[in-house]
């Protein structure tokens, strides 16, 4: 089973950037910087509750937010709590030294951009953020997949052990039996194994 990977590719199609900033001028300069690029810019000045609704509706590919915005926590909660697909978040800051801030997020999903960065650079920074996000996402997905495979194998092994013990099967027979059941019922081996285990525990009083 492969975890659903959502990779973003700026080469193939246009990307929606959601800018969250109360400063109209600054938002406009970002918009100008990204004109004539694959990025489609939407600007938002909102409270957090409507912000959540807007993010749900727009499904942006990248979020660009002022580091001074209290809405940062709301944006972060989206990837921590809900099943919502994580997005690269790029923060801009007028005060912080971008090098220092960059150090704090080394391999992370976020990037920092200084607000006085030349407009031409903005696009480049977004490109880099997207690339790095994809890399990070892939690493994360690989980890999830590896973990899932390991877990699934554990269930199958446990079911096999029970079949060997209770039904006097050989290991090969036990494995074949589980695989056949999975194929016959159109189920995953892992699910067949789980059912078998709970059934045998029910009948056999096994703990």
């Amino acid at each position: 089973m492969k975890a659903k990977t959502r990779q973003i590719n700026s080469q193939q199609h246009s990307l929606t950037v959601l800018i969250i900033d109360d400063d109209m001028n600054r938002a406009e300069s970002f918009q100008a910087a990204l004109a004539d690029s694959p990025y489609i810019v939407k600007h938002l000045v909102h409270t957090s509750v409507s912000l959540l609704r807007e993010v749900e509706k727009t499904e942006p590919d990248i979020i660009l937010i002022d580091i001074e915005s209290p809405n940062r926590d709301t944006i972060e909660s989206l990837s921590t709590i809900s099943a919502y697909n994580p997005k690269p978040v790029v923060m801009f800051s007028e005060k912080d030294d971008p090098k220092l801030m960059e150090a704090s997020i080394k391999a992370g999903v976020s990037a920092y951009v200084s607000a006085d960065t030349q407009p031409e650079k903005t696009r480049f920074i977004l490109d880099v953020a997207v690339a790095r996000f994809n890399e990070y996402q892939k690493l994360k997905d690989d980890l999830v997949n590896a973990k899932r495979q390991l877990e699934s194998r554990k269930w199958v092994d446990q079911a096999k052990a029970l079949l060997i013990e209770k039904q006097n099967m050989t290991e090969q027979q036990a494995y074949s039996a589980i695989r056949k059941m999975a194929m016959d019922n159109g189920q995953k081996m892992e699910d067949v194994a789980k059912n078998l285990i709970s059934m045998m525990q029910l009948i056999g009083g096994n703990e």
Partner: protein
Amino acid sequence: MNQPFSAIKLPLEKTELDIGFVALTDSAPLVVAQHLGIFERWGLEVNLKIQPSWATIRDRLQGQVLDAAQLLAPMPLAAQLGLNGNQNELINALNLSFNGNAVTLSLELYDQVKAINGGEDPSLPLDATWIKQIVDYRKDCHEPKLKLACVYPFSCHYYQLRDWLIKAGIRADEDVEFLFIPPTEMTKALANNQINGFCAGNPWNTKAARENIGVTVLTSNDVWSQTPEKILSVTRQWHAQHPNSYLAMVAALQQACNWLKSTSNRFEAAVMLKEYIDEPIEVLAPSLIGDCLTGIGHYNRHLPDLLSFNQEPFNIPDVEQGQFLLGKFMASGQYAGSPENAKQAIKEVYRTDIYQDVIGILNQLGEE
């Protein structure tokens, strides 16, 4: 000022410190240490820097834009486990405050509870069974789930709210919707019925009660008892480079916490906080002096430990605190890793050993 706040001259590696904090009532120890000149006595020149969000205060601490920061108690462990942003080594140097959170319901939701109770006000603290009845009713009528807001996913607020609901048989992850919005927006969202209730720290509950836009039905003490709420954190690296500056900073803050034992001193702290929080004294003071305003026309609750800054004898960070929080991470689906890994992380974060040095210094001074 009738207390001397004696100090010891330590060979400080750094004297000018930027400490980040979020402007809430429970940041009193930082504000007190600054205003009473306690930091100064320890040879520290401190700049208190108000931060706009927990995410930003964390990033600036990790990026060394800040030397130290007030954080939500679960944040260092979440960072150490790599749950919150990137894996980062933050240590818990001192428990700054205990309890202080409360649940406030919108007037509309409160009135629904009252209606079920035959028009009578329910007794407080509110039993979440009332909420369960409303949750079930809404489900039967295909109405949207109740929307409950907190400020941050790795916060005691969130776990306290969940524990309260779960105890009444509400399935926290399925029956209600949690939203995370900045505390400054809580009362606005409640007034507009964009949320049905929230769990946050003060002054936001007091403000909602005072302005008649909600009823505060539960405090964190009703769910958990004497739990660290905010802590002072530095990065492991910062501590290694500035061990004496660290000791001086923690000792100064412990003295500020001790000063805050007295109720009348806490009222003074409310006056000092006014400089940082743009709310009137009648909104800032009540929670500091143990008064939980519930709502216009309701009996208020006097709870001496509503918000406290002390744990006997010192505000030592404790590994048990980490284990307790780990349980909450797991129960809310935030951590599913190995227990051994978590145990190690807790050991790294809760540095009781370092704090022993602070105790040694304070004992030398004869501090209580």
